[in-house]
Protein backbone atom coordinates (compact mmCIF):
# COMPACT_ATOMS: atom_id res chain seq x y z
CA UNK A 1 0.00 0.00 0.00
CA UNK A 2 1.16 3.51 -0.71
CA UNK A 3 1.52 5.96 2.22
CA UNK A 4 -1.32 7.99 0.72
CA UNK A 5 -3.69 5.02 0.96
CA UNK A 6 -2.71 4.30 4.57
CA UNK A 7 -3.42 7.93 5.43
CA UNK A 8 -6.77 7.86 3.64
CA UNK A 9 -7.80 4.61 5.35
CA UNK A 10 -6.81 5.95 8.79
CA UNK A 11 -8.72 9.18 8.13
CA UNK A 12 -11.81 7.23 7.07
CA UNK A 13 -11.66 5.09 10.23
CA UNK A 14 -11.26 8.18 12.39
CA UNK A 15 -14.14 10.05 10.75
CA UNK A 16 -16.34 6.96 10.99
CA UNK A 17 -15.66 6.54 14.72
CA UNK A 18 -16.18 10.21 15.51
CA UNK A 19 -19.36 10.57 13.43
CA UNK A 20 -21.16 7.26 13.90
CA UNK A 21 -19.66 6.11 17.23
CA UNK A 22 -22.12 7.92 19.50
CA UNK A 23 -25.06 6.59 17.44
CA UNK A 24 -23.74 2.99 17.52
CA UNK A 25 -23.02 3.09 21.26
CA UNK A 26 -26.31 4.72 22.25
CA UNK A 27 -26.52 5.12 26.02
CA UNK A 28 -24.37 2.03 26.72
CA UNK A 29 -21.49 4.37 27.54
CA UNK A 30 -23.19 5.50 30.75
CA UNK A 31 -24.57 2.20 32.14
CA UNK A 32 -22.76 0.02 34.68
CA UNK A 33 -22.79 -3.50 33.29
CA UNK A 34 -19.91 -5.36 34.98
CA UNK A 35 -17.57 -5.22 37.99
CA UNK A 36 -14.99 -2.41 37.74
CA UNK A 37 -12.13 -3.09 35.34
CA UNK A 38 -13.45 -6.48 34.21
CA UNK A 39 -11.11 -7.89 31.58
CA UNK A 40 -12.32 -8.23 27.97
CA UNK A 41 -14.82 -11.04 27.38
CA UNK A 42 -17.44 -12.12 24.83
CA UNK A 43 -19.97 -9.46 25.94
CA UNK A 44 -17.44 -6.71 26.51
CA UNK A 45 -14.80 -6.79 23.73
CA UNK A 46 -12.65 -4.20 25.56
CA UNK A 47 -13.72 -4.97 29.12
CA UNK A 48 -15.12 -2.51 31.65
CA UNK A 49 -13.85 0.78 33.09
CA UNK A 50 -13.49 2.15 36.64
CA UNK A 51 -17.26 2.19 37.16
CA UNK A 52 -17.96 -1.04 35.29
CA UNK A 53 -19.07 0.66 32.07
CA UNK A 54 -18.46 -0.77 28.58
CA UNK A 55 -15.06 0.53 27.41
CA UNK A 56 -15.85 -0.03 23.70
CA UNK A 57 -19.02 2.09 23.99
CA UNK A 58 -17.10 4.81 25.79
CA UNK A 59 -14.34 4.82 23.17
CA UNK A 60 -16.98 5.11 20.44
CA UNK A 61 -18.65 8.04 22.28
CA UNK A 62 -15.57 9.79 23.61
CA UNK A 63 -14.21 11.31 20.41
CA UNK A 64 -16.97 13.54 19.14
CA UNK A 65 -16.76 16.34 21.66
CA UNK A 66 -12.96 16.23 21.66
CA UNK A 67 -12.83 16.44 17.86
CA UNK A 68 -15.37 19.28 17.84
CA UNK A 69 -13.46 21.21 20.51
CA UNK A 70 -10.15 20.70 18.73
CA UNK A 71 -11.61 21.67 15.36
CA UNK A 72 -13.27 24.79 16.73
CA UNK A 73 -10.09 25.81 18.58
CA UNK A 74 -7.92 25.30 15.52
CA UNK A 75 -10.33 27.17 13.25
CA UNK A 76 -10.42 30.13 15.66
CA UNK A 77 -6.64 30.17 16.13
CA UNK A 78 -5.86 29.94 12.40
CA UNK A 79 -8.50 32.54 11.48
CA UNK A 80 -7.26 35.03 14.10
CA UNK A 81 -3.62 34.41 13.21
CA UNK A 82 -4.22 34.58 9.45
CA UNK A 83 -6.31 37.76 9.64
CA UNK A 84 -3.73 39.56 11.78
CA UNK A 85 -0.89 38.09 9.72
CA UNK A 86 -2.31 39.32 6.40
CA UNK A 87 -2.71 42.75 7.91
CA UNK A 88 0.79 42.76 9.44
CA UNK A 89 2.34 41.60 6.16
CA UNK A 90 0.42 43.99 3.89
CA UNK A 91 0.00 47.17 5.89
CA UNK A 92 2.78 49.73 5.96
CA UNK A 93 1.43 51.07 9.24
CA UNK A 94 3.83 51.44 12.14
CA UNK A 95 1.49 49.36 14.27
CA UNK A 96 2.30 46.23 12.23
CA UNK A 97 5.78 45.55 13.67
CA UNK A 98 4.39 46.32 17.15
CA UNK A 99 1.71 43.67 16.63
CA UNK A 100 4.30 41.13 15.49
CA UNK A 101 6.49 41.85 18.52
CA UNK A 102 3.50 41.54 20.86
CA UNK A 103 2.63 38.17 19.30
CA UNK A 104 6.21 36.97 19.85
CA UNK A 105 5.91 37.95 23.50
CA UNK A 106 2.91 35.65 23.92
CA UNK A 107 5.13 32.72 22.96
CA UNK A 108 7.38 33.25 25.99
CA UNK A 109 4.51 32.80 28.45
CA UNK A 110 4.14 29.33 29.89
CA UNK A 111 1.26 28.12 27.72
CA UNK A 112 0.07 25.55 30.22
CA UNK A 113 -0.33 28.22 32.92
CA UNK A 114 -2.46 30.26 30.52
CA UNK A 115 -4.53 27.16 29.79
CA UNK A 116 -4.81 26.30 33.49
CA UNK A 117 -6.04 29.78 34.36
CA UNK A 118 -8.47 29.61 31.45
CA UNK A 119 -9.64 26.17 32.63
CA UNK A 120 -10.37 27.51 36.12
CA UNK A 121 -12.16 30.58 34.77
CA UNK A 122 -14.04 29.11 31.78
CA UNK A 123 -16.05 25.94 31.13
CA UNK A 124 -14.03 23.06 29.61
CA UNK A 125 -13.96 23.48 25.83
CA UNK A 126 -13.49 27.27 25.97
CA UNK A 127 -10.25 26.89 27.94
CA UNK A 128 -8.90 24.79 25.05
CA UNK A 129 -10.00 27.46 22.55
CA UNK A 130 -8.31 30.24 24.53
CA UNK A 131 -5.13 28.22 25.03
CA UNK A 132 -4.93 27.27 21.34
CA UNK A 133 -5.47 30.86 20.21
CA UNK A 134 -2.88 32.31 22.61
CA UNK A 135 -0.34 29.56 21.92
CA UNK A 136 -0.98 29.01 18.21
CA UNK A 137 -2.12 32.27 16.59
CA UNK A 138 1.24 34.06 17.08
CA UNK A 139 2.94 31.34 15.03
CA UNK A 140 0.25 31.52 12.31
CA UNK A 141 0.60 35.30 12.29
CA UNK A 142 4.33 35.10 11.68
CA UNK A 143 4.05 32.54 8.85
CA UNK A 144 1.16 34.34 7.10
CA UNK A 145 2.79 37.77 7.46
CA UNK A 146 5.95 36.44 5.76
CA UNK A 147 3.92 34.84 2.97
CA UNK A 148 1.89 38.03 2.44
CA UNK A 149 5.03 40.18 2.32
CA UNK A 150 6.47 37.89 -0.37
CA UNK A 151 3.20 37.77 -2.33
CA UNK A 152 3.08 41.55 -2.52
CA UNK A 153 5.66 41.71 -5.30
CA UNK A 154 4.44 38.77 -7.39
CA UNK A 155 3.07 39.45 -10.85
CA UNK A 156 -0.51 38.39 -10.15
CA UNK A 157 -0.83 40.61 -7.08
CA UNK A 158 0.78 43.60 -8.82
CA UNK A 159 -1.56 43.05 -11.77
CA UNK A 160 -4.60 43.02 -9.46
CA UNK A 161 -3.41 46.16 -7.67
CA UNK A 162 -2.74 47.77 -11.06
CA UNK A 163 -6.28 46.93 -12.26
CA UNK A 164 -7.44 49.02 -9.29
CA UNK A 165 -8.98 46.18 -7.29
CA UNK A 166 -9.86 47.17 -3.72
CA UNK A 167 -7.33 45.95 -1.15
CA UNK A 168 -9.83 43.57 0.49
CA UNK A 169 -10.44 41.87 -2.88
CA UNK A 170 -6.72 41.58 -3.58
CA UNK A 171 -6.13 39.98 -0.17
CA UNK A 172 -9.11 37.61 -0.23
CA UNK A 173 -9.03 36.60 -3.92
CA UNK A 174 -5.33 36.78 -4.80
CA UNK A 175 -3.08 36.56 -1.72
CA UNK A 176 -4.91 34.07 0.53
CA UNK A 177 -5.87 31.47 -2.12
CA UNK A 178 -2.22 31.29 -3.17
CA UNK A 179 -1.42 30.17 0.37
CA UNK A 180 -4.32 27.74 0.82
CA UNK A 181 -1.94 24.81 1.39
CA UNK A 182 -0.10 26.79 4.03
CA UNK A 183 -3.33 27.63 5.82
CA UNK A 184 -4.57 24.04 5.63
CA UNK A 185 -1.30 22.79 7.14
CA UNK A 186 -1.54 25.46 9.81
CA UNK A 187 -5.07 24.36 10.67
CA UNK A 188 -3.80 20.81 11.12
CA UNK A 189 -0.92 21.83 13.36
CA UNK A 190 -3.28 23.92 15.54
CA UNK A 191 -5.69 20.96 15.76
CA UNK A 192 -2.89 18.82 17.14
CA UNK A 193 -2.01 21.55 19.65
CA UNK A 194 -5.66 21.75 20.72
CA UNK A 195 -5.88 17.96 21.25
CA UNK A 196 -2.66 18.04 23.26
CA UNK A 197 -3.99 20.89 25.41
CA UNK A 198 -7.33 19.15 25.92
CA UNK A 199 -5.54 15.93 26.91
CA UNK A 200 -3.22 17.75 29.33
CA UNK A 201 -6.12 19.61 30.96
CA UNK A 202 -8.11 16.38 31.25
CA UNK A 203 -5.22 14.65 33.04
CA UNK A 204 -4.92 17.59 35.41
CA UNK A 205 -8.61 17.28 36.27
CA UNK A 206 -10.09 20.04 34.08
CA UNK A 207 -11.63 17.83 31.40
CA UNK A 208 -15.32 17.37 30.56
CA UNK A 209 -17.35 16.68 33.71
CA UNK A 210 -18.28 13.03 34.48
CA UNK A 211 -20.08 10.91 33.44
CA UNK A 212 -19.39 12.11 29.89
CA UNK A 213 -17.04 9.85 27.94
CA UNK A 214 -13.87 11.48 26.66
CA UNK A 215 -10.70 9.75 25.41
CA UNK A 216 -8.36 11.89 27.52
CA UNK A 217 -10.50 11.65 30.67
CA UNK A 218 -10.68 7.86 30.22
CA UNK A 219 -6.88 7.70 30.54
CA UNK A 220 -7.06 9.47 33.89
CA UNK A 221 -10.01 7.42 35.14
CA UNK A 222 -8.61 4.00 34.24
CA UNK A 223 -4.88 4.33 34.90
CA UNK A 224 -5.24 2.92 38.46
CA UNK A 225 -6.87 -0.22 37.03
CA UNK A 226 -4.33 -0.80 34.30
CA UNK A 227 -3.16 -4.12 35.83
CA UNK A 228 -6.76 -5.42 35.84
CA UNK A 229 -7.94 -4.25 32.41
CA UNK A 230 -5.16 -2.71 30.27
CA UNK A 231 -7.64 -2.25 27.39
CA UNK A 232 -9.48 0.43 29.38
CA UNK A 233 -6.35 2.60 29.06
CA UNK A 234 -4.85 1.37 25.82
CA UNK A 235 -8.04 1.76 23.72
CA UNK A 236 -8.49 5.50 24.38
CA UNK A 237 -4.71 5.96 24.06
CA UNK A 238 -4.87 4.29 20.63
CA UNK A 239 -7.80 6.52 19.65
CA UNK A 240 -5.89 9.67 20.66
CA UNK A 241 -2.85 8.40 18.76
CA UNK A 242 -4.93 7.86 15.62
CA UNK A 243 -6.45 11.34 15.88
CA UNK A 244 -3.22 13.29 16.44
CA UNK A 245 -1.05 11.29 14.04
CA UNK A 246 -3.56 11.40 11.16
CA UNK A 247 -4.02 15.16 11.51
CA UNK A 248 -0.30 15.87 11.93
CA UNK A 249 0.79 13.74 8.97
CA UNK A 250 -1.96 15.18 6.75
CA UNK A 251 -0.89 18.70 7.77
CA UNK A 252 2.73 17.95 6.93
CA UNK A 253 1.80 16.62 3.47
CA UNK A 254 -0.39 19.66 2.82
CA UNK A 255 2.46 21.95 3.87
CA UNK A 256 4.80 20.23 1.40
CA UNK A 257 2.23 20.57 -1.35
CA UNK A 258 1.52 16.81 -1.63
CA UNK A 259 -1.88 15.25 -1.32
Amino acid at each position, binding site marked *: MKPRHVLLAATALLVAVVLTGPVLAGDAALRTVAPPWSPPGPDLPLGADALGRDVLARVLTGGRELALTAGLSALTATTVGAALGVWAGWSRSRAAPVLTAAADLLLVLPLL*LVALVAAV*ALPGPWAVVVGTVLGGSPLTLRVVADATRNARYTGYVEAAVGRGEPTATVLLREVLPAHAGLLGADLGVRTVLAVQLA*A*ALAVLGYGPAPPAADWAVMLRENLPGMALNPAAVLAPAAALTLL*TVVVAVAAQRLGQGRR
Partner: protein
Amino acid sequence: MGALLRAVALVLVASVAVFAATALLPADAVAVRSGGRVDGEQLAQLRAAAGLDRPIVARYLDWLGGLLTGDPGSSLVSGRPVAELVGQRAPVSVVLVVGALVLAVPLAAALARTRGPAVGVLVVAGAALPPVVVGVGLAALLSGAWQLVPPVSLLPAGRPPWSRPELLVLPVLTLALPTAAYAGGQLRGTVADVVARPFVRDAVLRGMPPTAVALRYVGPLVAGPALRVLAVSAGSLVAGTTVVETLFGMSGLGELLVAAVRARDVPVVQVVALLAAVVVVAGLLFADLVATRNERDR
Protein backbone atom coordinates in the same frame (compact mmCIF):
# COMPACT_ATOMS: atom_id res chain seq x y z
CA MET B 1 24.38 43.42 25.49
CA GLY B 2 21.23 44.14 23.50
CA ALA B 3 20.25 40.50 23.73
CA LEU B 4 20.65 40.56 27.51
CA LEU B 5 18.52 43.71 27.81
CA ARG B 6 15.84 42.12 25.64
CA ALA B 7 15.88 39.02 27.84
CA VAL B 8 15.43 41.12 30.98
CA ALA B 9 12.56 43.00 29.31
CA LEU B 10 10.95 39.68 28.32
CA VAL B 11 11.14 38.39 31.89
CA LEU B 12 9.60 41.65 33.16
CA VAL B 13 6.75 41.38 30.65
CA ALA B 14 6.27 37.76 31.64
CA SER B 15 6.09 38.78 35.29
CA VAL B 16 3.33 41.31 34.50
CA ALA B 17 1.44 38.72 32.46
CA VAL B 18 1.78 36.03 35.14
CA PHE B 19 0.62 38.43 37.82
CA ALA B 20 -2.34 39.60 35.74
CA ALA B 21 -3.28 36.02 34.86
CA THR B 22 -3.35 34.95 38.50
CA ALA B 23 -5.35 38.04 39.42
CA LEU B 24 -7.94 36.90 36.87
CA LEU B 25 -8.54 33.60 38.69
CA PRO B 26 -12.14 33.51 39.89
CA ALA B 27 -12.54 33.09 43.67
CA ASP B 28 -9.32 33.89 45.54
CA ALA B 29 -7.55 31.70 48.10
CA VAL B 30 -9.55 33.17 50.97
CA ALA B 31 -12.83 32.17 49.34
CA VAL B 32 -11.56 28.70 48.35
CA ARG B 33 -10.15 27.99 51.81
CA SER B 34 -13.24 29.08 53.70
CA GLY B 35 -15.38 26.95 51.38
CA GLY B 36 -18.40 29.28 51.60
CA ARG B 37 -18.76 28.85 55.37
CA VAL B 38 -18.12 32.50 56.25
CA ASP B 39 -20.22 35.57 55.40
CA GLY B 40 -19.19 38.53 53.28
CA GLU B 41 -17.93 40.68 56.12
CA GLN B 42 -15.61 38.01 57.48
CA LEU B 43 -14.37 37.32 53.95
CA ALA B 44 -13.52 41.01 53.57
CA GLN B 45 -11.61 40.94 56.87
CA LEU B 46 -9.68 37.83 55.84
CA ARG B 47 -8.88 39.43 52.48
CA ALA B 48 -7.60 42.59 54.17
CA ALA B 49 -5.42 40.45 56.46
CA ALA B 50 -3.94 38.69 53.44
CA GLY B 51 -3.45 42.02 51.64
CA LEU B 52 -5.81 41.01 48.82
CA ASP B 53 -7.96 44.19 49.06
CA ARG B 54 -5.25 46.56 47.79
CA PRO B 55 -5.09 47.83 44.19
CA ILE B 56 -3.52 45.39 41.74
CA VAL B 57 -0.68 47.73 40.68
CA ALA B 58 0.43 48.19 44.31
CA ARG B 59 0.29 44.44 44.85
CA TYR B 60 2.34 43.84 41.70
CA LEU B 61 5.04 46.33 42.72
CA ASP B 62 5.21 44.81 46.23
CA TRP B 63 5.56 41.37 44.73
CA LEU B 64 8.24 42.43 42.25
CA GLY B 65 10.14 44.23 45.02
CA GLY B 66 9.90 41.10 47.16
CA LEU B 67 11.21 38.93 44.30
CA LEU B 68 14.17 41.24 43.67
CA THR B 69 15.11 41.28 47.37
CA GLY B 70 14.82 37.51 47.54
CA ASP B 71 11.49 37.29 49.37
CA PRO B 72 8.76 35.86 47.09
CA GLY B 73 6.22 35.77 49.93
CA SER B 74 4.44 32.91 51.63
CA SER B 75 1.87 30.36 50.57
CA LEU B 76 -1.70 31.50 51.27
CA VAL B 77 -2.67 27.91 52.07
CA SER B 78 0.08 26.53 54.31
CA GLY B 79 1.71 29.81 55.33
CA ARG B 80 5.16 28.43 54.49
CA PRO B 81 7.61 30.61 52.55
CA VAL B 82 7.32 30.09 48.78
CA ALA B 83 11.11 29.85 48.45
CA GLU B 84 11.12 26.88 50.82
CA LEU B 85 8.28 25.11 48.96
CA VAL B 86 9.96 25.67 45.60
CA GLY B 87 13.35 24.60 46.94
CA GLN B 88 11.86 21.39 48.24
CA ARG B 89 10.10 20.52 44.97
CA ALA B 90 12.73 21.76 42.50
CA PRO B 91 15.15 18.76 42.62
CA VAL B 92 12.51 16.36 41.23
CA SER B 93 11.65 18.62 38.29
CA VAL B 94 15.27 19.54 37.58
CA VAL B 95 16.26 15.87 37.51
CA LEU B 96 13.33 15.06 35.19
CA VAL B 97 14.03 17.92 32.76
CA VAL B 98 17.81 17.49 32.70
CA GLY B 99 17.46 13.73 32.37
CA ALA B 100 15.03 14.17 29.49
CA LEU B 101 17.39 16.62 27.75
CA VAL B 102 20.39 14.30 28.15
CA LEU B 103 18.39 11.56 26.51
CA ALA B 104 16.62 13.71 23.89
CA VAL B 105 19.64 15.57 22.45
CA PRO B 106 21.54 12.56 20.99
CA LEU B 107 18.26 10.97 19.92
CA ALA B 108 17.20 14.17 18.14
CA ALA B 109 20.60 14.40 16.45
CA ALA B 110 20.24 10.82 15.21
CA LEU B 111 16.70 11.50 13.91
CA ALA B 112 17.81 14.73 12.21
CA ARG B 113 20.66 12.93 10.43
CA THR B 114 18.69 9.90 9.24
CA ARG B 115 17.19 10.36 5.78
CA GLY B 116 14.11 8.67 4.40
CA PRO B 117 10.35 9.26 4.34
CA ALA B 118 9.68 6.74 7.15
CA VAL B 119 11.74 8.78 9.61
CA GLY B 120 9.96 11.91 8.33
CA VAL B 121 6.60 10.43 9.28
CA LEU B 122 8.01 9.07 12.56
CA VAL B 123 9.16 12.48 13.80
CA VAL B 124 5.89 14.18 12.83
CA ALA B 125 3.85 11.46 14.55
CA GLY B 126 6.09 11.39 17.61
CA ALA B 127 5.87 15.14 18.10
CA ALA B 128 2.08 15.11 17.66
CA LEU B 129 1.34 12.55 20.39
CA PRO B 130 0.04 14.07 23.64
CA PRO B 131 2.53 13.37 26.47
CA VAL B 132 -0.19 11.50 28.37
CA VAL B 133 -0.52 8.97 25.57
CA VAL B 134 3.25 8.47 25.45
CA GLY B 135 3.33 8.03 29.22
CA VAL B 136 0.46 5.56 29.29
CA GLY B 137 1.92 3.57 26.40
CA LEU B 138 5.35 3.38 28.04
CA ALA B 139 3.78 2.39 31.36
CA ALA B 140 1.83 -0.40 29.64
CA LEU B 141 5.01 -1.69 27.98
CA LEU B 142 7.68 -1.25 30.65
CA SER B 143 5.72 -1.89 33.82
CA GLY B 144 2.70 -3.78 32.49
CA ALA B 145 4.00 -6.23 29.89
CA TRP B 146 7.69 -6.43 30.81
CA GLN B 147 7.47 -5.61 34.56
CA LEU B 148 10.74 -3.66 34.45
CA VAL B 149 9.84 -0.60 36.51
CA PRO B 150 7.11 0.30 39.04
CA PRO B 151 4.07 1.96 37.36
CA VAL B 152 3.59 4.86 39.79
CA SER B 153 6.53 6.57 41.40
CA LEU B 154 5.52 7.20 44.99
CA LEU B 155 8.78 8.68 46.16
CA PRO B 156 9.15 8.74 49.97
CA ALA B 157 8.93 12.37 51.14
CA GLY B 158 12.26 14.07 51.73
CA ARG B 159 14.27 11.54 49.70
CA PRO B 160 16.18 12.97 46.74
CA PRO B 161 14.81 11.72 43.38
CA TRP B 162 18.11 10.09 42.37
CA SER B 163 17.95 7.72 45.36
CA ARG B 164 15.47 5.55 43.42
CA PRO B 165 16.57 5.77 39.78
CA GLU B 166 14.10 3.10 38.61
CA LEU B 167 11.26 5.51 39.46
CA LEU B 168 12.67 8.05 37.01
CA VAL B 169 12.60 5.78 33.94
CA LEU B 170 8.94 6.29 32.94
CA PRO B 171 8.68 10.08 33.52
CA VAL B 172 12.04 10.84 31.89
CA LEU B 173 11.25 8.71 28.83
CA THR B 174 7.77 10.27 28.57
CA LEU B 175 9.32 13.73 28.48
CA ALA B 176 12.28 12.81 26.28
CA LEU B 177 10.71 10.89 23.37
CA PRO B 178 8.27 13.56 22.04
CA THR B 179 10.94 16.24 22.56
CA ALA B 180 13.47 14.25 20.54
CA ALA B 181 10.90 13.74 17.77
CA TYR B 182 10.03 17.44 17.70
CA ALA B 183 13.64 18.66 17.74
CA GLY B 184 14.77 16.03 15.24
CA GLY B 185 11.93 16.97 12.89
CA GLN B 186 12.67 20.68 13.14
CA LEU B 187 16.35 20.18 12.31
CA ARG B 188 16.07 17.62 9.49
CA GLY B 189 15.87 20.27 6.78
CA THR B 190 18.81 22.28 8.14
CA VAL B 191 20.99 19.18 8.50
CA ALA B 192 20.13 18.01 4.97
CA ASP B 193 21.12 21.45 3.60
CA VAL B 194 24.44 21.46 5.43
CA VAL B 195 25.27 17.88 4.49
CA ALA B 196 24.70 18.72 0.80
CA ARG B 197 27.28 21.53 0.85
CA PRO B 198 30.51 20.96 -1.14
CA PHE B 199 32.94 21.09 1.78
CA VAL B 200 31.04 18.36 3.65
CA ARG B 201 30.89 16.19 0.52
CA ASP B 202 34.61 16.74 0.00
CA ALA B 203 35.38 15.69 3.55
CA VAL B 204 33.35 12.51 3.10
CA LEU B 205 35.11 11.77 -0.21
CA ARG B 206 38.49 12.32 1.45
CA GLY B 207 37.56 9.39 3.68
CA MET B 208 37.03 11.35 6.90
CA PRO B 209 35.12 9.24 9.46
CA PRO B 210 31.41 10.22 9.69
CA THR B 211 31.66 11.19 13.38
CA ALA B 212 34.53 13.57 12.65
CA VAL B 213 32.59 15.11 9.72
CA ALA B 214 29.56 15.57 11.97
CA LEU B 215 31.57 17.21 14.77
CA ARG B 216 33.91 19.32 12.66
CA TYR B 217 31.79 20.48 9.69
CA VAL B 218 28.10 19.85 10.31
CA GLY B 219 27.88 20.58 14.06
CA PRO B 220 29.07 24.20 14.06
CA LEU B 221 26.71 25.17 11.21
CA VAL B 222 23.71 23.51 12.83
CA ALA B 223 24.50 24.77 16.35
CA GLY B 224 22.55 28.06 16.07
CA PRO B 225 19.21 26.63 14.90
CA ALA B 226 19.69 23.58 17.15
CA LEU B 227 20.07 25.71 20.28
CA ARG B 228 16.97 27.69 19.33
CA VAL B 229 14.98 24.47 18.97
CA LEU B 230 16.49 23.28 22.25
CA ALA B 231 15.33 26.45 24.04
CA VAL B 232 11.77 25.96 22.77
CA SER B 233 11.96 22.27 23.74
CA ALA B 234 13.12 23.19 27.24
CA GLY B 235 10.00 25.34 27.58
CA SER B 236 7.72 22.53 26.53
CA LEU B 237 9.60 20.12 28.82
CA VAL B 238 8.96 22.44 31.76
CA ALA B 239 5.27 22.58 30.82
CA GLY B 240 5.30 18.80 30.34
CA THR B 241 6.42 18.24 33.93
CA THR B 242 2.94 19.26 35.13
CA VAL B 243 1.33 16.39 33.24
CA VAL B 244 4.09 13.84 33.82
CA GLU B 245 4.42 14.52 37.55
CA THR B 246 0.66 14.32 38.01
CA LEU B 247 0.46 11.13 35.94
CA PHE B 248 3.27 9.29 37.74
CA GLY B 249 2.69 10.73 41.21
CA MET B 250 5.95 12.66 41.61
CA SER B 251 5.94 15.77 43.78
CA GLY B 252 7.87 18.28 41.71
CA LEU B 253 7.27 21.87 40.63
CA GLY B 254 4.74 20.96 37.94
CA GLU B 255 2.54 19.14 40.38
CA LEU B 256 2.98 22.05 42.84
CA LEU B 257 1.76 24.47 40.15
CA VAL B 258 -1.36 22.42 39.45
CA ALA B 259 -2.18 22.05 43.14
CA ALA B 260 -1.57 25.75 43.75
CA VAL B 261 -3.85 26.79 40.87
CA ARG B 262 -6.58 24.56 42.27
CA ALA B 263 -6.21 26.11 45.75
CA ARG B 264 -5.80 29.65 44.31
CA ASP B 265 -2.49 29.79 46.15
CA VAL B 266 -1.49 32.84 44.09
CA PRO B 267 2.03 33.50 45.49
CA VAL B 268 3.07 29.93 44.70
CA VAL B 269 1.51 29.98 41.20
CA GLN B 270 3.26 33.25 40.37
CA VAL B 271 6.73 32.11 41.37
CA VAL B 272 6.53 28.69 39.69
CA ALA B 273 5.07 30.15 36.47
CA LEU B 274 7.68 32.89 36.38
CA LEU B 275 10.43 30.30 36.85
CA ALA B 276 9.09 28.46 33.80
CA ALA B 277 9.18 31.68 31.75
CA VAL B 278 12.73 32.43 32.95
CA VAL B 279 13.90 29.00 31.75
CA VAL B 280 12.52 29.70 28.24
CA VAL B 281 13.96 33.23 28.06
CA ALA B 282 17.35 32.07 29.34
CA GLY B 283 17.40 29.33 26.71
CA LEU B 284 16.54 31.78 23.90
CA LEU B 285 19.16 34.25 25.17
CA PHE B 286 21.82 31.54 25.16
CA ALA B 287 20.83 30.49 21.62
CA ASP B 288 21.01 34.14 20.47
CA LEU B 289 24.44 34.66 22.01
CA VAL B 290 25.85 31.52 20.38
CA ALA B 291 24.33 32.47 17.00
CA THR B 292 25.84 35.99 17.06
CA ARG B 293 29.22 34.58 18.09
CA ASN B 294 29.12 32.05 15.27
CA GLU B 295 28.34 34.80 12.76
CA ARG B 296 31.15 36.98 14.06
CA ASP B 297 33.65 34.13 13.79
CA ARG B 298 32.87 33.59 10.14
